[in-house]
């Protein structure tokens, strides 16, 4: 286990270095003088030259790259042009909102997806199963941001039950969490169903039935436990993506998390802020991937690392 952690941490660091190289290259490729962006359009040439010097923009490219990597490693993601603050400070401000939304969305995904998948498997081939498969297919094919807009239109605008957007807690959280959770729940229920069907077809279930165990107990005790591994993996990875900021959903609901931040950064051409979001998003995804692999070993003794 500790060897596994060591190897994987090394892998994550290499991946992060790739991401940072990528964001550095993109920052470089933007046809816009960063110094000019910092001081604004009305500054004099001397002021631009001063900032260029301060930022070290005239240094050789490898010197700049080394400095960039060093800064990122120390948690300094640069300076936001549009908000005139450190990117790290902005992201730390927004992070709690994204975390809250991610937890709520995963909750919806769990509560809807797992029972639906189990029910589908228990009634496989029946009406309930077919309806469930049809609905989950639709949820998979529909763009989540559009589902969000339609929910917003119906629930908030037409029926006036919830606010149209913003970060009022808890009412403002309900619709974005449901939107995000439903799309995930469609996949969760499908994975759950497939895993449960596999268990139901196995010898152990036949033995339990022969022993006289009621089907309900078999479904809830045995299927649930055996299918936990793929479902957990999936939930952990989804959680990583949610934490990275759901750009579209947060934009639809004006939820002030990392996703909305990256959208605003894009609109204002705020390259350092956007690259900060990319780096932080990647870190979350990588960490939760690691957590998913570790969790699998705990749940399923057959998995060895």
């Amino acid at each position, binding site marked *: 286990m500790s060897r596994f952690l060591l190897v994987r941490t090394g892998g994550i660091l*290499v991946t992060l270095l790739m991401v940072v190289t990528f*964001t550095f290259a993109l920052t470089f*490729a933007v046809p816009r003088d960063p110094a000019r962006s910092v001081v604004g359009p009305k500054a004099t040439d001397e002021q631009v030259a001063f900032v260029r010097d301060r930022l070290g923009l005239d240094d050789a490219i490898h010197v700049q790259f080394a400095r960039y990597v060093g800064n990122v490693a120390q948690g300094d993601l640069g300076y936001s042009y549009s908000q005139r603050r450190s990117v790290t400070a902005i992201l730390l401000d927004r992070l709690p909102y994204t975390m809250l939304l991610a937890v709520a969305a995963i909750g919806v995904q769990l509560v809807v997806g797992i029972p639906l998948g189990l029910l589908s498997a228990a009634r496989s081939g029946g009406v309930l199963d077919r309806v469930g498969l049809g609905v989950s*297919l639709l949820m998979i*094919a529909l*763009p989540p941001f559009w589902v969000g807009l339609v929910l917003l239109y119906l629930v908030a605008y037409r029926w006036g039950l919830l606010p149209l957007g913003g970060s009022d807690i808890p009412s403002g959280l309900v619709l974005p969490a449901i939107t995000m959770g439903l799309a995930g729940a469609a996949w969760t229920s499908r994975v759950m169903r497939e895993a449960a069907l596999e268990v139901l077809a196995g010898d152990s279930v036949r033995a339990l039935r022969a022993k006289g165990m009621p089907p309900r107990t078999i479904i809830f005790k045995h299927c649930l436990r055996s299918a936990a591994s793929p479902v957990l993996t999936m939930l952990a990875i989804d959680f990583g993506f949610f934490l990275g900021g759901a750009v579209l959903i947060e934009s639809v609901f004006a939820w002030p998390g990392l996703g909305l931040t*990256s959208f605003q950064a*894009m609109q204002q051409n705020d390259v350092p802020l956007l690259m900060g979001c990319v780096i932080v998003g990647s870190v979350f995804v990588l960490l939760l991937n690691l957590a998913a692999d570790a969790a699998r070993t705990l749940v399923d003794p057959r998995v060895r690392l």
Partner: protein
Amino acid sequence: MSAAAPVPEIGAGVVVGGARRSILRTVVRSPSAVVGGLIVAGFLLVTIFAPLIAPHDPNVSQADGLSLLGEPLGPGTTGYPLGTDAIGRDMLSRLAYGARVALVIALVPNLIAMTVATIVGLVAGYARGRTELVLMRVTETVMVLPAFLIALALIITLGASLGVVIVTLGLVTWTYPARVVYGEVVRLREEIFVESARAVGAGPLRIIGRHLLPQLRPLLLVYFTLNAAFMVLLEAGLGYLGFGVQPPTPSWGSMISEARDQFFYPWLIIEPGLCLALLGVGFYLLGDGLARALGPVRPRIRL
């Protein structure tokens, strides 16, 4: 799936692989795949005949396209069966031309992604050793990154244009199919027919091109179909944020984006969304049907 050698069809003058024919048969037998195929074919027809279907120019505000109060016309108005948008353009025409964008996005970046996936998977699987290790590590690395954010970062740097969107979508979606191709090649490379080809002196290029690639065709077809649905969703998402195919070209995603605060006129949001959903369902059903002919494969992408 039968692994029969290619059989020449008498009179047809072409060689049809046994594997491919059995896929076709399975698809025809699966009702969901038939439905999916019909939906996709329907959109293809709309794409081809968009100028005939569209009653008006999709990018021109019509003189009678707004009510006297300056509001868009609702669906069912004479002359505008699906209504008009906020500046009086015909929705049906815009949706029909939007199908063109959607299908181009479903096919072209997809082709890029599948080509990269095939090359990476084949080379990694066949070469073994260090090449295999490096290629697959890179693939897995790119695979876990947040694709949508990376795509946004690329597009904002390079500028949103059809070309950039197409290349970007291709670049963020090749990884999953690459790993599947790789897995299949790893299985195939131990087979007798590869060994015998090598024994009679076939070089690596010949083995890859003549012996491995044809075996991968059904798998590539499934992933091409399923990927198409992702592409459409991804472009819709980019379009919603204003970084997809640029106006005035009508793309369903950017149509939703333009109407996102127009709750007075819900059809502006609902109609393009339904088109997206229908095309997505079509590709999924078709892909699912194809996949069932080959065993379970189901990738996913997050927006």
